[in-house]
């Protein structure tokens, strides 16, 4: 899965078509709602957004829900129940351009930790009547089930980037969301590297940019919440942390966070599990 839209999937605004506002749908699967609320968080820009696009389906924000199809769909959450498996197919059918938002939708989210455990056992431990709970063995990203046109990473996503994706869609450009390491953002803002100057483990070198290198600016290592970037050389980075004193359990925890089920991080954490 790449983060940039394939060239064929970015719509061009046809200047001769009658002016019709693009229709937006916001959908949610297994998630905390934090990401879609970023849309409401866009206080200052929300009016402009509502002026440029027609918010047709957004259960959090309006009661009247208009049926599809939608020009732009924002999809939050992972697939973790049998019903969701079917719903996501319907969302795809109704959507011209489908954008997944947040770590749950793009990588399976923190709930994907159960993918390494026995979920029946979890259910027995958590619920009094586990037989009422219908769930899948795994929590998986949307892209594991349907074609995704663009992924917006983060836990939660940044509202500036959400605005950029919506604007880019409306104007017809490729969103300014770069598939490159967090290190570039860190250096552009002049933050001192916490790996080199403090010896902290930091996933910045293998993590997709987009947060603006927030954690290192507050003196902590990157947790990788934006998920792996292209060509994430996790093995080399893990080796460096091991030399710095990190044990295998710590390495498992490091790579198994909010986006731990994304392939590059999943493989790396599995490589450090006891055999």
């Amino acid at each position, binding site marked *: 899965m790449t983060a940039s839209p394939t060239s064929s999937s970015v719509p061009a605004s046809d200047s001769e078509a009658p002016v019709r506002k693009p229709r937006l749908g916001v959908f949610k699967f297994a998630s905390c709602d934090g990401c879609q609320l970023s849309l409401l968080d866009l206080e200052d820009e929300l009016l402009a957004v509502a002026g440029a696009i027609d918010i047709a389906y957004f259960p959090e924000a309006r009661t009247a829900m208009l049926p599809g199809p939608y020009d732009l769909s924002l999809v939050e959450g992972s697939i973790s129940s049998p019903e969701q498996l079917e719903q996501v197919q319907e969302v795809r059918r109704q959507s011209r351009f489908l954008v997944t938002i947040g770590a749950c939708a793009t990588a399976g989210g923190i709930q994907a930790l159960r993918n390494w455990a026995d979920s029946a056992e979890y259910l027995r431990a958590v619920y009094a009547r586990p037989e009422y709970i219908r769930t899948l063995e795994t929590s998986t990203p949307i892209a594991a089930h349907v074609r995704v046109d663009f992924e917006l990473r983060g836990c939660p996503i940044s509202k500036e980037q959400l605005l950029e994706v919506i604007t880019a869609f409306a104007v017809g450009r490729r969103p300014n969301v770069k598939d490159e390491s967090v290190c570039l953002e860190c250096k552009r803002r002049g933050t001192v590297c916490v790996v080199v100057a403090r010896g902290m483990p930091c996933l910045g070198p293998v993590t997709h940019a987009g947060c603006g290198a927030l954690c290192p600016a507050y003196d902590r290592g990157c947790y990788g919440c934006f998920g792996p970037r292209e*060509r994430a050389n996790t093995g080399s980075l893990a080796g460096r942390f091991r030399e710095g004193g990190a044990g295998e359990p710590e390495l498992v925890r490091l790579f198994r966070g909010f986006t731990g089920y994304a392939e590059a991080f999943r493989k790396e954490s599995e490589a450090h599990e006891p055999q």
Partner: protein
Amino acid sequence: MEVEVKAEAKEDARSTVRAIDRDGLERLLGLLREEGYRTIGPTVRDGAIVYDEIESVRDLPAGWKDEQAPGRYRLVRRPDDALFGHVVGPISWKAFLFRPRETLTAAARGEGGALEFRRAPFEPERAAFIGVRSCDLAAIAVQDTVFTGGPYVEPRYAALRRAAFIVAVNCLESGALCFCASMGTGPRARRGFDLALTEIEGRFTVEAGSDAGRRLLERLGAEEARAEDAARVEEGTARCAASMAKRMDPAGLPELLLGNLDHPRWDEVAARCLACANCTMVCPTCFCSTVEETSDLTGSSAGRVRVWGSCFTEEHGKVHGGSYRPEIKDRYRQWLTHKLASWVPQFGTSGCVGCGRCIAWCPVGIDITEEVAAIRASPGPVPDVQGLPLAPVPSPLPAPRAPAASSVEEDLVPRPAAVTAAVRETPDTVTLHVRPPQGFSFRPGQFNMLSLPGVGEVPISISGWDGTAVEHTIRAVGPVTRQLAALRPGQELGMRGPYGSSWPVDEAKGCPAWVVAGGLGLAPLRPLVRELIGRPEDFPEVRLIGGSRTPGDILFVREILGWIGRRNLQTHLTVDRAGPDWRGSIGVVTQLLDDASIEGVYFVCGPEIMMRFAVRRILEAGVPPQRVYVSMERNMKCAAGFCGCCQYGPLFVCKDGPVFRYDSVAYLFERSGF
């Protein structure tokens, strides 16, 4: 070229050496601020010594030293309270001259869709850089060449550079990762400063290196330095040079590295390298950038922002969907060969000044000097052919560019230009006729930068001139080209150009001229064909060979049919597949090159893979490589030699190309990863 003039003035400065104490230094900072300079110098922040605004001597890192090792940096206390008892940190002066984010242009779409482009407002701040080390003086000189050495001058860099006042500091103790001595860039600051300080036992000798520096010294009214103080500066810096443990042998690096592009060491380092780009961010000479398009939700006001980029990103080598440097190995090799090899023919110097930053700030501690030493220790596997040199040296390396006599300030601001006609060529390709905003002349093979505010800018080759408008043949493959291809007559776009080299038409005078096109590659060749067939007395024998996927993909069909019967033109078209109506050939273009004439001059353009096969066939026929020309495509953001994205080995496709004589690209042409 004011920047260079200033540098020269600095060089022939009379030597004026004064001595001051800490109070004197405080007064010096005060005078600079009085003269309107923002004073920027070393200061402690977040566990490192960074360059930031300093208000007084108290902000300097008194008594701190930076201990450095590959991938490791720690501040420790010194036994004394020296202000400059450290070396270089993660920030370099480029952050103040070639700034990490810079808005280039602003655009607005008015009533009725009319476009307006403006150069973004720019106030060059007057900054005084306090504590510039000798390696960093050399790095500034390197970036001066990159941004002001021509053919274009980057106006923002040039303005900031002209406004800067440089206070250098001589190094008396080297850091563990410094190797300026072996690169010939330090530790003694010899040129390129306004003032240079040497800190000896709590006092400073100050020498002036420019008129501005001398004037400031006069105002400071400091006492003359004693002769022995001056002598201690020379001794101290010499001792520092002698003690420098790290070194890199710069001799013959271009040949060594470009001659060992298949060395196993590249795989070995690629296994460790994270492609995180930290080395390029901290390197004081790296100059690559990319561009972000911004706009409001309606696209009526938009901007273009330049941000630091790096050859370690995938985007750097990306052209509609594909990447020319997909592997980490390709990217590390680009970095090392650019810094130490390609830089020399590009700019006449090495791209490395020996500051050691890339070694300290690489999270996995990859050491540029060790990588070079490893390749030097075992240059390539010896080819199993007698008589071949040990390492196939690309020869000759392109010569350094001559100093630009006619550099122009390239403000990168497009001008609005109106579409006069849009002609559909194939289902996905359109020729836009665009009336140029002002007098316009171009040579066949050149390109324009076309843009739509808030959407993007792309290089498009010029496919002709219809008498009043420039023709551009555009295939809709990405967001920008798709919207360009959808423009209608009367609508406006942004245009700047023309840029780049052209087909050397006259080289073919009196010879058979072979024009070999694959797909869209016919677009930049069409103005050439028009010129060739229009001058039958000079070009008695022109052959056009064109390949496309299907008959429906052939460009300019009507015009090509109109050429039938021209005395001096023979046309052969071939397609990959076709229905029963097709009367031309089926198959690749190479089959139409079987009778390639040894006297011919060849102009080739198309997808790289097609060009490889075509050129191979032409050379097999015995045609000397000097008679073959190819047109290359790479990622282009600036078209002026600034963004670094279009590099092809030592060449810039935007300013050295896109048209190259084959022998100048031969040793790269058959490889991938560049």
